[in-house]
């Protein structure tokens, strides 16, 4: 099956889901909250019991340089998805830059273990298919909490397919891919240990905290760091309610 068909199917799927949600108010973007909270709790339990402790041990026993190399490697193999989405968003110069970055790191950087490009001052871009859909005008759609992966949305879910298809590791035998996927997951969790510690310390309701942070971060990325509606953020309403946008 061609990539075309999968993309078309993904688009159709997201269009279906999104059309129903764009009409809802800004407050009501979590129609699946009941299910989401259940998955969130399962994820949280699994994280506390297994993933986080493993990530803690991992970050204790591996030198920082090794973790950096692992992070670089997985970032580099996922970079084809960035380049494809540069193109889909019409960012042709950035696509050229990112192709150069990928080639440089894949060769001189020993298959991506070293971020040589970053070291020589080449900006690393962050694009994915969810951002592309956002750029194309799709609303975020219902918020989703996926098993193990966590926060997502109808608009971002199709990226699971594109990033999987565009990752060279997908085409290597599963005997290699599966251990690598586990390493990638543990390494990523280790990178977020500090961030989740701060969240656990600050959040009163971790579920809604995570959801809101996810949404805003996505918005921020879609607009490459300059979301338009964050300039003037509140209006005074007649009954004295101030609203932030």
């Amino acid at each position, binding site marked *: 099956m061609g990539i075309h068909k999968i993309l078309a199917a993904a688009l159709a799927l997201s269009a279906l889901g999104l059309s129903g949600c764009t009409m809802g108010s800004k407050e009501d973007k979590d129609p699946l909250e009941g299910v989401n909270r259940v998955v969130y709790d399962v994820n949280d339990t699994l994280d506390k019991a297994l993933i986080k402790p493993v990530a803690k041990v991992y970050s204790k026993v591996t030198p920082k340089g090794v973790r950096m190399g692992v992070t670089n490697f997985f970032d580099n193999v996922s970079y084809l998805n960035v380049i494809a989405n540069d193109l889909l968003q019409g960012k042709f110069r950035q696509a050229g830059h990112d192709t150069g970055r990928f080639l440089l790191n894949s060769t001189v950087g020993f298959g991506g273990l070293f971020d040589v490009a970053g070291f020589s001052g080449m900006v690393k871009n962050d694009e994915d298919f969810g951002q592309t859909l956002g750029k194309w005008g799709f609303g975020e759609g219902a918020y989703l909490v996926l098993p193990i992966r966590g926060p997502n949305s109808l608009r971002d879910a199709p990226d699971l397919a594109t990033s999987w298809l565009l990752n060279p590791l997908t085409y290597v035998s599963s005997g290699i891919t599966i251990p690598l996927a586990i390493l990638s997951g543990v390494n990523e969790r280790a990178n977020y240990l500090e961030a989740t510690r701060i969240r656990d310390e600050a*959040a009163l*309701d971790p579920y809604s905290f995570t959801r*809101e942070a996810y949404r*805003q971060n996505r918005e921020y990325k879609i607009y490459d*760091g300059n979301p338009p509606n964050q300039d003037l953020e509140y209006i005074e309403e007649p009954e004295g*309610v101030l*609203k932030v946008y």
Partner: protein
Amino acid sequence: MRTIRSLIAAAALLVMVTGAHATDAGDPAAPVAKLHDVLLDIMKRADGLGYRGRFSAIEPVVSQTFDFPAIGRIVMGKYWAGLAEQEQKGFLETFAKLSAATYAARFDGYDGESFRTVSDEKQNENNALVKTELVKGNGETVSLNYQLRTDTDGKWRILNVVADGISDLSLKRAEYASIMSSDGYPALMAKLNAKIAQYEADGAAAAGSGKTR
């Protein structure tokens, strides 16, 4: 030549005399700078001050530079109007205390950080956006955008902090709305107070073990 020099001296004197006043009322960047100054100060003296000392240093500055009455209405959204006056007052006091406690807990050591103002623009008579960056010791930056508005007394006060695109008030609003709708006001207050108590306990534990994070 002499006249120019004395003119400059006079102008400088004028700036010195009026500077304090001007920064108070006219410049939206002033409260942000004031907040950043005290944050840097508590970071640099973190160990000597301890959590309690940091809290006492930051608390008056936070209450002067943030517009808590407006913030209360924003974070409580549709629930604000339904609260009794006493409940609103109680919420604002606790919220302000939690804000100071969060700064005191988070800014607990110095590692070469600095703050940089990127831009400072008035969007209209009553609203301004001050863009700043926290530059870490290793050169990484976190963008910190402050939204300000003029209070009834005409002074600029901070409404919201947006860190790397994530709006503090929107996060809190989502959380508080969720707690208000499922458990109500007493539960929200209990959770806010529990956070403050947690920061105090962690601060005391850090002091007891002779180190900060």
